């Protein structure tokens, strides 16, 4: 059958297909052109501009589903109140502010801080847990291997959610460690921890900071039974500072983020009888081992 066709037949076949396909193409193109004009949705070009500035990690640290959603929210609101990309930091937010035409003051960079120092040595395990390796499961099930109901259960939910590789488990201590270089304070670990052990605190001038590494709200006697470095609410830290920057509520001390670590740090760390107050890069005081490693 194939051999009976002539070259002329083939020519006319090709010609007709080219013509008909071009026609279809032209008609569809005109339909699309008309539709694009008639149903056009106006989109603020600023959204694209803001999105280009953002890190593009889609980490959700800002509370939105992704960077595009955040950009849309910023442009729609026209202001930056309550909107912040912790990953990009203040330098980037200033740029974002320029796009939407407002001035942004530089803010201090933040870092995630683990408010628990219940290492394997400090909070000795009394029981062994061999259930599912998930902090939320363990938290719902029991108080933890050491018995402290507020301490780190050490199963690494925070490490799993960190998209910036800034957290890792220290096998020796059994606690997660924050890598100072990599942490962008997106807050994913703050949300993931069932015991709310993470706090975003300012990195501090030259990285000096001081904080209470305990979240135990039990009475001192009970807390100390489970962990050597628990805060026992003895009030000594309140007395050594002249300001109102240290407060004790619910059997737990809290050092305000605006405390000058270099000035008050040594006194605060020195006065704590249990060693619940930790400092980073404070002269004369040994830094938190894990953080100074990074």
């Amino acid at each position: 059958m194939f051999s009976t066709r002539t070259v002329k037949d083939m020519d006319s076949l090709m010609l007709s297909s080219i013509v008909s396909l071009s026609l279809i193409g032209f008609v569809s193109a005109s339909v699309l052109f008309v539709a694009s004009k008639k149903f056009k949705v106006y989109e603020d070009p600023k959204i694209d501009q803001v999105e280009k500035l953002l890190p593009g990690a889609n980490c959700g640290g800002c509370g939105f589903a992704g960077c595009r959603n955040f950009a849309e929210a910023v442009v729609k609101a026209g202001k930056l109140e309550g909107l912040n990309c912790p990953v990009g930091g203040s330098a980037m937010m200033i740029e974002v502010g320029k796009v939407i035409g407002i001035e942004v003051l530089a803010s201090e960079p933040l870092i995630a801080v683990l408010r628990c120092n219940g290492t394997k040595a400090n909070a000795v395990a009394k029981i062994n847990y061999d259930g599912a390796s998930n902090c939320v499961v363990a938290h719902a099930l029991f108080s933890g291997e050491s018995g402290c109901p507020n301490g780190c259960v050490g199963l690494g939910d925070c490490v799993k959610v960190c998209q910036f590789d800034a957290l890792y488990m220290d096998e020796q201590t059994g606690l997660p460690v924050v890598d100072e270089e990599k942490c962008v304070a997106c807050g994913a670990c703050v949300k993931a921890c069932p015991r709310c052990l993470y706090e975003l605190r300012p990195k501090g001038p030259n990285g000096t900071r001081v904080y209470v590494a305990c979240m135990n709200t039990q009475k001192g006697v009970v807390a100390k039974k489970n962990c050597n470095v628990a805060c026992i609410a003895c009030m000594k830290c309140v007395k050594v500072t002249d300001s109102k920057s240290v407060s004790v509520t619910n059997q737990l001390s809290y050092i305000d983020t605006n405390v000058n670590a270099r000035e008050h740090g040594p006194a605060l760390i020195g006065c704590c009888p249990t060693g619940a107050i930790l400092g980073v890069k404070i002269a004369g005081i040994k830094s938190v081992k894990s953080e100074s490693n990074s």
Partner: protein
Amino acid sequence: MSDLKTFPKGGVHPSDHKLSSQKKTLILPLPKVAKIPLSQHLGAPAVAVVKKGDQVKVGTLLAKSGGFISANIHSSVSGTVAMISEATDTSGYLKEMVVINVEGDEWEVNIDRSTDLKLEIVNTREEIIEIVKNAGIVGLGGATFPTHVKLMVPPGKKAQVLIINGVECEPYLTSDHRVMLERADEMLVGIKIIMKALNVEKAVIGIESNKPDAIEHLASKTKDYPGISVQPLKVMYPQGGEKQLIKAITGREVPNKGGLPIDVGVVVQNVGTALAVYEAVQKHKPLIERVITITGKSVKNPGNYLVRIGTPVIDLIEASGGLPEDSGKIISGGPMMGKALTSTEVPIVKGTSGILIMTDKEAKRIPQSNCIRCGKCVSVCPLGLEPYLLYQLSIKRKFDRLENEDVMNCCECGSCQFTCPASLPLLDYMRLGKLEVGKLIRSRKNN
């Protein structure tokens, strides 16, 4: 035996290990200090009505019910209230407890301590419910749902049959078995009382066929009690689950998504609860003690003890010959649904049906491997769920989809995890899913 009734869907058959089924119930000596938690039941915690230094007798009201679904708490010992403070419970978290230093054994005067059987039921329906409520009786099968709430049939609904749960499908446990053998008459009067309160004519006692002596004993006893019959059942876990037992005995199916047994005209009570109801109504004795099994392969003398609420677990272990050296886990409840204890100082509560000591070897979990979608968990789930899927969704935190997959129907029987050849922690993650979906549902209700 194969033509015996059972539930049609799923189920597993773990080995029985009923080591203590032929051991007579002994009375455990009084503890030196009793710690009585204020929350021993499902629902709102009770509110303490005693204070430090108060003298209490056995049966004195310690705490009043704190809501509609809540229960009174009575003193199980006589002595002085040392303090009302927080102490660790089974989970290791601190819970409010009344701590009593035990002095002597003086009972409230109105409690009838004689052992004579009191057959005649003089109280009216309303009175019975009120007495059960005041006595602080909760479901003694383990879920500890306040019994008086179950006895109040909501308007527009009618109870047709009362099912008494004598299944005891958990391996090792024998406390219900002993109650059925040793206190059959009292229990049967208790059933009569519940029948009167519910206004039903028919009661069925469901017993698995691995307890032939109990079936025989009760079958001969029930001849004197018209309306009560015994139904032998095929051995299958989790037949003691309310929904499974109803399906096995009546063939009725409790509706999904929050359906209750009363929707199909059934009320289920445990044998221990029936006994407690008898003691409360006929003898004015509140719920202050219960039969508990202490068992385990390496336990010297596995047995059944009548234990006062608030006794530390260690007392019970000592009575059975001390903690064996190769102990791996101490479990409150049975091996399938029980919970490992974090300390032996925790008190026995209303819902403790047994203490199981597992050897080191038994207690260890088998290393996990990967899910190969073999579907064993699906075939054993008595509720027709897909545990492998729920497990994955829970790990990936897709809680809205979990809700659509009916995770809230899960009764946490653990059949899936028991049967999983990859030994995955299926139930752990399904519990997580239930927890999070529960939060979702509550937040939606509040908005």
